[in-house]
Each structure stands twice: as structure tokens, then as C-alpha cells.
């Protein structure tokens, strides 16, 4: 098997794998929010930024190659990841104390992981639209980080309910229905798209606050541990399926 090095550690890879896939399969966590092993990478959150032979690249889209020297945890990159996380917090409206995703949210857990104690930048306090029209699913755009996971999940299950519209600071999540309302879309409560949101932007109604504080996903375990436990096996499975296919 060909290998590259990640912070000096040898990482074997199958040709065609990205740096992210190879690292995760080898049990090395690379921070990410918009990547999920079962979907095409989106490359937008930039938290997986690594230096490949000295050049800044997104590990989720960059193909692994023999002999690459990849740096993940330099002081510079850790600082970059902290600032990116803070930017995600200030560009939306994230009030964790009364968010139903708190304790189970990947953005919040990433904040803990990168040691974020403040938001550094001035807050935008943007005005975004909340859509409560669906009987089973709530869309709270205040917490959307534009990761595009709901877009990909819905597309892959043949429904195309969500799309990201606009560019840069104008980016916003739109819903595919005559009224633009979630209640008039084809989204079902059991769709993957209703459950894939890493933050509290798409939440299934009547499920909030069921898990008590102290027993929530990230109360005692880091996003790195949880990601390696839950996502790394999916990378391996996806790869095995490709081999057979």
C-alpha cells in the first residue's frame, strides 16, 4: 500500500482516497463539519485545512498521493481552525443555552475541541427566517452553517428538498416547494436530510431536550473520539463496497 505522512506518522491509503478518508480509516481525526463519509465532499467549511507539501489544502477533497508530507496540527493551523470556528459562530445566531441541539451539536463540540472560549470577532446578529411550517421538522436558519449536508442527503435520496442559494455573505438555505416553505416540500421526518444537520438548524420536532445534561453526546467525549467511533467505520465500509462494486 502507498503511504503519505501526517504530522510524521505513516498513513497508508488506497489510490483514489482523499487525505481525509485515509486519515480517518487509519484512526486519525481531522476536524470537519461539512464532510460526512457517505456523501460527496463539499470542501466549504475549511476546518480540515492541512498543509500538503507546504501548501494549504482541504483534506476532504485533496487526493492522497505517495510520499506527501501532510501537516495537520501545527500551531498555525490550530490557530486557523480556532478563527474559522469563531467566524461560524459570529455569522449566525448561536445561543447555545437555549438551543435544542446543545450538547449534541458538532459546531459546539468543535468549539470545545479547539479550545474556543470567546468569539473574537464582532457579531453579525443577522436576521434570518425561521420556518416552522412542517408538522414534524423545524428549520431554524439562525443556526445554519451552510455545510450543504442536508442538500446532499436530500439529493441522494432523490428528493432535492434543500439548496444553498446566493454567494459569500448572501448565502442562504432555500427549500424546494411552491411556497418556499418546508411544510409544502416533500421532506419526510424519516428522511436522512431531516437528521443529517450537524447543528441545530434542522431539528425533528418533539425530540428536544430528551437527553439530560451530563448524558449528551459531547458532555464527556470529544468530537474527535465520537467522529472516529462513528464515522471512521463508514469510510472503511464505503471503501470495501467500492472494491466489491
Amino acid at each position: 500500500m502507498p503511504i503519505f505522512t501526517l504530522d510524521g506518522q505513516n498513513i497508508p491509503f488506497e489510490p483514489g482516497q482523499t487525505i481525509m478518508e485515509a486519515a480517518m480509516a487509519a484512526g486519525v481525526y481531522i476536524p470537519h463539519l461539512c464532510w460526512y463519509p457517505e456523501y460527496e465532499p463539499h470542501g466549504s467549511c475549511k476546518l480540515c485545512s492541512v498543509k500538503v507539501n507546504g501548501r494549504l489544502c482541504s483534506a476532504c477533497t485533496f487526493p492522497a498521493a505517495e510520499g506527501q508530507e501532510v501537516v495537520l496540527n501545527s500551531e498555525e493551523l490550530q490557530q486557523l481552525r480556532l478563527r474559522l470556528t469563531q467566524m461560524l459562530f459570529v455569522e449566525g445566531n448561536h445561543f447555545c443555552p437555549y438551543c435544542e441541539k446543545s450538547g449534541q451539536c458538532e459546531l459546539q463540540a468543535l468549539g470545545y475541541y479547539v479550545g474556543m472560549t470567546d468569539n473574537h470577532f464582532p457579531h453579525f446578529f443577522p436576521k434570518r427566517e425561521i420556518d416552522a411550517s412542517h408538522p414534524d421538522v423545524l428549520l431554524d436558519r439562525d443556526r445554519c452553517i451552510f455545510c450543504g449536508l442536508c442538500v446532499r442527503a436530500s439529493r441522494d435520496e432523490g428528493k432535492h428538498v434543500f439548496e444553498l442559494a446566493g454567494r459569500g455573505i448572501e448565502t442562504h438555505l432555500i427549500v424546494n416547494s411552491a411556497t418556499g416553505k418546508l411544510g409544502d416540500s416533500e421532506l419526510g421526518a424519516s428522511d436522512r436530510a431531516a437528521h443529517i444537520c450537524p447543528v441545530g438548524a434542522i431539528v425533528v420536532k418533539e425530540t428536544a431536550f430528551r437527553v439530560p445534561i451530563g448524558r449528551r453526546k459531547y458532555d464527556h467525549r470529544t468530537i474527535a473520539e465520537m467522529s472516529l467511533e462513528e464515522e471512521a467505520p463508514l469510510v472503511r465500509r464505503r471503501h470495501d463496497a467500492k472494491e466489491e462494486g
Partner: protein
Amino acid sequence: MPKKKVRIATTSLAGCFGCHMSFMDIDERLLELAGIADLDRSPLTDIKSCNECDIGLVEGGVCNAENVHVLREFRNSCRILVAIGACAINGGVPALRNRFDLGDCLEEAFITGIGVTDPTVPGDPELPLLLEKVHPVHEVVKIDYSIPGCPPSADTIWTVLTDLIDGNEPDLAYELIRYD
């Protein structure tokens, strides 16, 4: 010779005093704190303006003109200024009004709201004027350290405070950093 005591000031701006309550939850460690620190301006002492202090703890965001004044006074008087709690760090619950027009908020609260009697917007000159928006404290003055949480746990507050008193960079274990 006994070590010189550190001077600590605390205040609550647009907050709910929950962070101060959590601070009190250090329980018997309050005695230890009393041995190494003196309290300057604080809701616990009722001193009205801040003297030269080593550490200032600020709870709550900035929602009116008086908050701005107190916060600047703290920055001028405290060598190390610490933002404590969600409201100080990102505006918190009071910042919910940021998506509305201030005039509409006052009208809803004092004129058209349910159960309002004698509908008038309070205008006593003693009342501090509200700002157009609620701001986190770091948007108004330089903040040296922040303790997240709503409120931060007593252990979190104690860890940061004692680290700072000892002259160390605060070092919080995973479970002590919480945003809720």
C-alpha cells in the same frame, strides 16, 4: 511576610446575576478566596465605583449607556478583565432583541403588550438610555480572558480565578468548557 492580597471587582451588566450565583457556588472555597483576595466594587460589597484592581469579572452584555460606562470603568481600573458567561461573550438572551427594532420592543413591552396598564414608555431621566442593539463586551473594550457557560460552573470559575491569581494562563479541562 504574608503575600499581598489580590483585589477583585465584579459586576453584572445586561445579565441575570446567574454567573454571580454560580460564583457563590464555590461554597467553602469562598473562605479560601477571602484569605487571598479582597473584593472591591461588586454586588456583594455595594462599593459604587471601582478602585485599582488586579482582576475584574464582568457578567452580562452591553444593552444601555450605563453598561458602557461601568464596563469602561472596569477596563480602566482592572489589570486583567475577564468576561464571564454567555451574555458577556455573545449577548445571550438579551441579544434576542437584536432582530427587532428598539422602538417596537418598547411599544410591545409598555404600550400594546398583554396586561399592560397605564401604557407609557418609562422616561425618567434616572433610567439609562437603551442602546440600539445589545453587544458582547469584547465589542466595547479589550477583554483578556473569557469564561463561557450559562452560567459557567463554580469549578470553571474557580479554576480560572485561581490560575489568574497564581499568575498562570487559565487551563480548563474538557468538561469545564461549556457554552450552555
